[in-house]
């Protein structure tokens, strides 16, 4: 046998590596072990002092991040993080979302709502210890008003601003172009002037590490597609949160998020499907929470799109321009059954596009304007309107069949199943529904162009209804016949509605404004450009063996994550000091170590045996 010169060296090296692995492994495992135990107060030997006794709430996410720049970021996840990082002048209350103190302790509207005067709290500080003054507010607002690129995210909120001034350190005066009732200080994150004026190009600034902020948490670090870490801000004017850190952890797949919650890799998961939600019910250490969301779902009925100057566009069936047909569709739709069967009851019956979680503006179920499911009345309405049943039961008028297309998202089980209920109901009253299953991008493109009869849609609504009402006015219709140049919720246009819109916008008496808004909702309900079906609950689950004390918005029935505010994580605190899960990864490490050792030893043995056998034979 010819032995290669390197063989002995190789064998010696293999043995050395194996030995080194044996020695190094226990040390490596011991060092790595405390890492997953962060969410408790358990201060076992830890390689990193920063997390020795840190209480970290870990939230599973799959959200996009463009940046954490409050002027330009438009995705949901960073927008939420920005809510925690920067306080507004006026915050949305946890109780019902109405305006409550933010940086401003109090405010008053003067000159019929044309001038708003805000007074800041005393002694507020940024997270770096610098004082928060009216100069920061003025700097932020003026940047948005004067630099178009800095209006990307919230430019619409300052479009009515004429001037912003600071007569002294504690006072901010906002002068508007036209009077407005919605508080102008809402929803705009105020940034620290002393930090941002040193940034060379604020429009492209990513703002993704060591952020100086004024909210309950400030961003520490961001690793794309891996994690976002925020730490508690001890200088927050309402007092520091009760946990030390928030950590968003990336999971591409929602089933993986559920497994991560079960194994204890994360503490909170949101946006669960009803199946996932039910599967987590009763699991030890986990509490499921179904909260009233701020999103409505509706069937949009295309009344015939027009541009702002009256040019018709789109492909709506002309029959839908007839309000009697649209009303008949509402009468023939059993939204109660849809909620119970399709959504498994995990939601609230809808009346309009303002969800029940905003009780100040919502149109109540028992409002006299609300009609109930009544197929007989639907048939009578169509009969009276001249739609007569044909031989196949489908109604005909002027030789045209009452046949409507309905787009449903092929990826959305809820829409698919709702359509299966809806089509037979319509057939029953004499309307043929042609269900067209397609992808969400096509639906989005076609709905913009008015190229549909019926489709499922929905919006997340803000605490102040002004924007949502606004996109139902003629003033907001598209300017071009391809549907661009304006955002219209359902192509709805009624000059009377517009008149009420202008009235509510400058009505400073909140009770009166509520009355006007409800009148508008009733009008929209009667005109039936949409049939609101439900307000789906937000399905969430968390490790109740580790954390408790989440504040809901709205109170009692509301949600934890994705609030229009920072309340959810402000009051949450750790349960005791025991760590139930979290040993998972240690076992994983030991198993991996074990596998490596076995492979190395096995390889060495194999190598030696093979050498011996070869020597025997050849």
């Amino acid at each position, binding site marked *: 046998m010819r032995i290669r010169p390197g063989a002995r060296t190789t064998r010696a090296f293999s043995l050395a590596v194996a030995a080194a692995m044996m020695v*190094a492994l226990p040390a490596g495992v011991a060092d790595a072990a405390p890492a997953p135990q962060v969410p408790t107060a358990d201060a076992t030997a830890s390689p990193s002092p920063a997390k020795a006794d840190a209480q970290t709430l870990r939230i599973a996410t799959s959200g996009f991040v463009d940046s954490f720049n409050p002027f330009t970021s438009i995705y949901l996840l960073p927008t939420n993080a920005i809510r925690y990082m920067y306080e507004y002048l006026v915050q949305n209350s946890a109780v019902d979302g109405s305006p409550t103190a933010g940086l401003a302790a109090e405010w008053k509207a003067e000159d019929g709502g044309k001038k708003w005067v805000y007074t800041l709290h005393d002694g507020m500080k940024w997270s770096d210890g610098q004082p928060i003054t009216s100069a920061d507010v003025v700097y932020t607002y003026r940047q948005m008003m004067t630099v178009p690129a800095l209006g990307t995210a919230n430019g619409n909120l300052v479009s009515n601003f004429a001037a912003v001034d600071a007569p002294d350190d504690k006072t901010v005066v906002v002068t508007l172009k036209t009077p407005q009732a919605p508080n102008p200080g809402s929803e705009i994150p105020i940034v620290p002037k002393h930090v941002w004026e040193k940034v060379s190009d604020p429009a492209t600034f990513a703002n993704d590490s060591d952020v100086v902020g004024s909210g309950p948490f400030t961003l520490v670090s961001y690793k794309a597609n891996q994690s976002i870490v925020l730490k508690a801000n001890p200088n927050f004017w309402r007092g520091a949160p009760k946990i030390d850190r928030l950590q968003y952890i990336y999971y591409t797949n929602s089933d*993986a998020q559920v497994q*991560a919650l079960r*194994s204890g890799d994360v503490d909170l998961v949101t946006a669960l499907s009803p199946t996932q939600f039910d599967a987590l019910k009763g699991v030890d250490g986990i509490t499921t929470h179904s909260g009233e969301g701020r999103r409505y779902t509706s069937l949009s009925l295309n009344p015939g799109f027009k541009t702002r100057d009256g040019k018709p566009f789109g492909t709506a069936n002309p029959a839908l321009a007839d309000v009697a047909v649209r009303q008949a569709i509402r009468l023939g739709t059993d939204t109660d059954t849809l909620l119970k069967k399709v959504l498994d009851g995990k939601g609230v019956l809808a009346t309009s596009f303002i969800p029940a979680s905003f009780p100040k503006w919502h149109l109540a179920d028992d409002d006299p304007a609300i009609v109930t499911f009544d197929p007989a009345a639907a048939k009578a309405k169509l009969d009276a309107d001249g739609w007569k049943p044909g031989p196949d039961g489908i109604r005909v008028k002027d030789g045209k069949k009452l046949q409507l297309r309905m787009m449903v998202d092929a990826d959305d089980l809820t829409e698919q199943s709702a359509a299966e209920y809806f089509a037979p109901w319509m057939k029953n009253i004499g309307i043929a529904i042609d269900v067209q299953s397609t992808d969400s991008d096509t639906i989005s*493109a*076609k709905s913009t162009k008015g190229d549909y009869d019926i489709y499922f849609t929905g919006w997340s609504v803000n605490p102040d209804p002004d924007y949502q009402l606004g996109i139902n006015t003629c003033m907001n219709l598209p300017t071009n016949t391809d549907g661009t140049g304006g*955002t219209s919720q359902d192509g709805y246009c009624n000059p009377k509605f517009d008149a009420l819109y202008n009235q509510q916008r400058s009505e400073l008496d909140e009770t009166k404004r509520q009355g006007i808004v409800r009148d508008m909702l009733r009008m929209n309900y009667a005109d039936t450009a949409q049939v609101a079906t439900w307000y789906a609950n937000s399905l969430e689950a968390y490790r109740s063996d580790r954390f408790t004390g989440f504040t809901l918005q709205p109170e009692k029935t509301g949600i934890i994550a994705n609030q229009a505010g920072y309340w959810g994580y402000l009051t949450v605190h750790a349960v005791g000091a025991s760590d139930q899960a979290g040993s998972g990864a240690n076992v994983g*490490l030991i198993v991996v*170590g074990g596998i490596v050792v076995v492979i190395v030893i096995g390889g060495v043995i194999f190598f030696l045996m093979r050498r011996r056998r070869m020597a025997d*034979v050849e």
Partner: protein
Amino acid sequence: MTANTVPPTEAVIIDEMGAEQAPRGVPALRYVGAKVAGACVSMVMVIILGFFAFKILPGDPVAVMARERQMSAAQMDQLREQLGLNKPLLEQFWDYLVNVFTLNLGESYVYKTSVASLIGQYFWNTILLTGTAAVLAIALGLWLGQKAGWRHGSTFDKITSGSSLVLWSVPTFWLGLILLMIFGGTLHWFPTGGMVSPDPPADAMGRVLDVASHMVLPVITMVAVVYAQYVMVMRASLMEEMSADYLTTARAKGLREDLVRRRHAVPNALLPTVTLVFMHLGGLIAGAVTVETVFSWPGLGKLTFEAISGPDLPLLQGTFVVFSAVIIVMNLFADLLYRQLDPRVRS
């Protein structure tokens, strides 16, 4: 002389003779030239397709981005202008070409950074995952394949072929989720996703083990669904060699059966698998999409998945072009290498 009867030593001799006999030079150049030209044509097609295929997709990226936001028309126009979507199509195509040929690949809508640098960042994560899986799958598949082929019809063969084919037919997504549920969610043996723990250990060894523990489930998933193809090819190609005369010679020399297989049959049977390995290497990166999505592995596959949901057109175009380029280059390599390894292709 038929292919099956060329013992490895003779193959080497023929190879050496060929090299000395020069006339092979011109056809070789022509062969290489033809293959390279073919690859270039494919690449040009890919680049053109990369732009138009995604442009004809329905949907306005700005509308999708603004879907959950209360944005005014002016703000949406502003966004369109920032993303260059208000330019005429031909101008956009020109910009795209410039971006491709300067290897910058445009700026991602979501990440606000150049697609080339994004791909550069995520490339190594994917290589770590898929490379490990490929090495394991190839080693396991070839080893099982030659064992099974040598004793084809035996119980070992039936079990090996059967189980590998069953795993080959299992949907990757499903297998991944099941493993995740059992070993992540229920037994807590392995992390449920990602590449590193949110708070990774401070020491180097701990970090290596941390990444390794995150790799176990995705690697097992990838190996399980692909090793069957190596088993099958290796098994079939070894069976072809089994009746060859040179094996009889080897046995007549008094070699043990084990050595006859390892020294003589397997090296010859390995040839067809070379092409397969290279083609697989090309598909490695693209093939990671499903596994990376299930296990939230921060690699190119996940990047692509998110680009589709975005829709982040520049990123989507960039990953499409890069994936295709890798496959084209690897196939070209396979063609060239095969010719170098197997004298039969040259004759």
